[in-house]
């Protein structure tokens, strides 16, 4: 182990690697964003050792990393917290590796920690290779293909309708009940609707220049039968309110319960 390797030595070692390595080294320093985290950076740095990852010198690597961080700080590059945490941890690891083990200290030894870091690097590297191999495989839609005109299963939904005899009889009973019920429906003969009243009044209003009693506006034949009269009065009153709202007539009532009187509006222009 070249334990004495300092950050300066790392720099010189880069210089001896030739132009390509130097360019790579510069890229390392300037482009921190190009790394996907401290582990990725460590993996890249480890390549400069040109050894099997299993034999990588973790101590040397730690120094390389710390050197890199120092350089980045000098260049006032913003470093993500991850990188600084790793730097602190590697500084701790370095001290553990350099100092003789303290028997009173708890926790894993420097060697154990270093071995785990080496394992992590090897594992990451292996995953990188695996992903490259995976992506190099023949791929569906690129190298091999599925049926271009799939004939999908058509789902035929067959609906059967059903009814029971009881349904049938109840339906008939319902209709027949409606027949017996018809007199109620016939009631509409005794109903004078507001629509009807409006129609009637619109036709007549042009002739109502003078105040006239609302009751005189009831349709013929509706005045005598009390049921019919009530309905016609209500409808005519409602219709007169509508017309007053529309500005076509004026309404007045002398006192409470006095007859209501109506007449066409004087200006008459609003007639339609």
């Amino acid at each position, binding site marked *: 182990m070249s334990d004495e390797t300092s950050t300066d030595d790392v720099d010189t070692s880069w210089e001896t690697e030739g132009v390509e390595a130097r360019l790579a080294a510069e890229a390392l320093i300037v482009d921190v964003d190009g790394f996907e985290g401290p582990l990725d950076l460590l993996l890249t740095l480890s390549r400069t050792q040109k050894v099997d990852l299993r034999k990588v010198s973790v101590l040397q690597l730690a120094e390389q990393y710390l050197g890199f961080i120092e350089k980045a700080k000098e260049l006032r590059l913003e470093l993500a917290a991850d990188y600084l945490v790793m730097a602190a941890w590697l500084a701790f690891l370095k001290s553990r590796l350099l100092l003789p083990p303290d028997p009173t200290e708890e926790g894993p030894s420097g060697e154990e920690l270093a071995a785990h870091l080496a394992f992590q690097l090897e594992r990451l590297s292996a995953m990188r290779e695996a992903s490259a191999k995976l992506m190099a495989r023949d791929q569906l839609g690129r190298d091999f293909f599925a049926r271009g005109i799939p004939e999908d299963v058509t789902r035929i939904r067959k609906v059967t309708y059903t*009814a029971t*005899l009881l*349904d*049938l009889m109840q339906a008939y009973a319902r209709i027949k009940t409606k027949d017996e019920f018809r007199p109620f429906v016939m009631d509409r003969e005794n*109903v004078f609707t507001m629509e009807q009243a409006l129609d009637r009044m619109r036709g007549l209003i042009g002739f109502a220049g003078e105040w006239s009693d609302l009751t005189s506006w009831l349709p013929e034949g509706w005045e005598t039968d009390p049921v019919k009269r009530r309905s016609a009065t209500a409808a005519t009153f409602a219709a007169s309110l509508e017309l007053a709202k529309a500005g076509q007539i004026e309404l007045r009532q002398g006192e409470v319960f006095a007859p209501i009187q109506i007449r066409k509006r004087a200006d008459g222009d609003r007639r339609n």
Partner: protein
Amino acid sequence: MTEETDTKPSAPPENDSLFEAPPMGEQERMVEAILFASAEPITVRELEARMPHGSDPAEALVYLRKRYEGRGVQVVKVGDAWAVRTAGDLGFLMQKETVETRKLSRAAIETLAIVAYHQPVTRAEIEEIRGVSVSRGTVDQLIEMEWIRFGRRRMTPGRPVTYVVTQHFLDHFGLENARDLPGLKELRAAGLLDNRPPPGADALPDDEDEDESPKGQNELFED
């Protein structure tokens, strides 16, 4: 011709083979793959354009077609193009049938009941009894179900068609004869007529045919 080297980097060393079309067996494979993967039927000209120079897709198609004779899929001609299709006799595999049972709509059951009790009956009469117009679809559905059928034309002006119930209807409802249907008195005795609907019950908007029925009633509440 040199572009072939681009598309086939693993070509054999002899120079000749570079310019020779692939063996017919190989061409057949190619046609097979192209027809399979293509989203549309492919013409011979298109095959030619995609296969190595000198290929004869028309001949390859003859072999391929033969190879698929009697198989589960067929090489078929579509216009002047070619495609792979499921063999006609296996079409049933491409369908999945699901049967769903539903209750007849109220409009349909009422129409059916009227036909059963009043047959032979015209559409106008059905409408008069129900108090609403009968939609074409309701009658069609009952005819399709083979529960009602056309009876004789009525000898009245317009000679309207009548409807009667079918044997199928009688079978379904376990009746020997439509006359076996319980009469009003029996319905009442059975408690089926006891419940007079409360005023306004007709206006329940649960039946599409019904919307005309309570016209007068609705008018009362309009505006």
